[in-house]
């Protein structure tokens, strides 16, 4: 499926003869080659998880977060180029703050997603800029209820019940479809996401890694926060066991 965009792929402001913008597609490749991130819309909130591949065992666990709050009630989880991700988070924070100053109420999920999508899109219009090499999961829980949106490097944004981005997204999506979408509780979602990320993680390719999860739900008082350490640890335990069991049945089947 991959075709070389020879000549038409050098600049963001160039269409190819078949109507594609290759720079945007290449930016999407940066996302597709990075660690998996999953978001789940639950009945009582939203949970996001990121498979963080680490470059060293010396990194302090829990540092260099990839899911960050942009307002009290909203946060982003991003996968792709981490430096680009930080710019997006910075802009999201500015949008939330400005909205509250102008309108006096916290920004709605749909509006935040739209603003960010517009921002992403702007970087696909001009020769002097390049698209962001990251996709964002926008999670919020305000008076409009729990909301989950995903924005990709082209700037298109849609609402989701469940969303997976990054290298393990195909397998993750299949697993997500098996869930009772929109009706899970956040605690169930934490366990589900932990299991899916452990399932898609390839231990031969990314030996050092960390699972980072955040949520905004009734249990967190509608504040976007890291999932409590004990719940996360428990979820990882169960995930490792479940994935380990399925690996074992695979090897037994192979040896027979």
């Amino acid at each position, binding site marked *: 499926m991959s075709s070389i965009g020879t000549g038409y792929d050098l600049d*963001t*402001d*160039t*269409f190819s003869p*078949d*109507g*594609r*913008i290759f720079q945007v597609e290449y930016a999407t490749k940066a996302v597709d080659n990075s660690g998996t991130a999953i978001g789940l*819309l639950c009945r009582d909130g939203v949970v996001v998880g990121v498979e963080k591949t680490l470059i060293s065992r010396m990194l302090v666990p829990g540092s260099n977060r990839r899911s960050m709050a942009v307002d009290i009630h909203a946060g982003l989880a991003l996968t792709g180029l981490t430096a680009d991700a930080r710019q997006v988070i910075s802009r999201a924070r500015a949008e939330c703050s400005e909205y509250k100053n102008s309108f006096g109420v916290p920004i709605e999920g*749909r509006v935040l997603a*739209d603003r960010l*999508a*517009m921002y*992403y*899109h*702007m970087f*696909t*219009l*001009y*020769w*002097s800029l390049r698209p962001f090499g990251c996709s964002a999961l926008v999670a919020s829980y305000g008076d409009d209820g729990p909301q989950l*949106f995903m924005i990709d490097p*082209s*700037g*298109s*944004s*849609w*609402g*989701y*019940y*469940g*969303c997976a981005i990054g290298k393990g997204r195909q397998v993750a*999506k299949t697993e*997500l*479809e098996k869930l009772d*979408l929109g009706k899970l509780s956040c605690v169930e979602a934490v366990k589900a996401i932990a299991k899916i990320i452990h399932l898609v993680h390839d231990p031969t390719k990314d030996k050092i890694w960390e699972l980072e999860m955040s949520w905004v739900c009734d249990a967190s008082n509608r504040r976007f926060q890291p999932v409590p350490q004990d719940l996360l640890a428990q979820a990882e335990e169960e995930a490792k066991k479940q994935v380990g069991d399925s690996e074992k049945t695979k090897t037994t089947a192979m040896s027979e």
Partner: protein
Amino acid sequence: VSTQSTWGIRGAKCAVVVTQRKVPDKLLRPETVTHVFHVTKNIGCVITGRIADGKAFLYKARQEASNFWYKNGYDIPVSFLAKRLADSAQLTTQNVGQRPYGVALILVSMEQMDDGTLAPKIYKVDPAGSYLGWFGTASGQKETEAINYLEKKHRGGKMDNLSVEDSIVLAIGTLQSVLASDFKATELEVGIVTEDHPAFRLLTDEEIDRHLTAIAEKD
């Protein structure tokens, strides 16, 4: 690459736009998937092509409309809006360091004529920056086939006499014949403006169903 098809037709006292609504993923929230938007209360617009470009263009349209109302004290006529958008799109084709929007916008509205009456209007703005008013037009996949089909339907000025019901039936019927498949109400978005109800609105699933049944029974 998008496989979206859109078309609009104009009746005696109404204008209708139809587009397909494909929700490819079970994980998507279908209520967030739409290509039909309001520019103002009375001007509706359908985006065909890159949705991100379309939204940016739409926001520009909203700004133009809003500025016009602020400066002139009355709602922007859709023909004028189309001209402003087209001129804006043209700049992107001539300025250095910019690229054209990868979208065609089909705008519909009941425009007030000089004698005070309302007349239905359809305008299409394309990435080249050209715009035209149409009796019936299409955009996206099977654009040429749809326009040819509509030309036959209009021959002799027939579309000028279509009632609201007939316009909707023709709009949805074009779909079945050009795309050669049957659709469910949830797979279509139908936007309409009429003389009695000039505010742009989307038909509900029940209303679309009613028309689909009428078309099926005719066959």
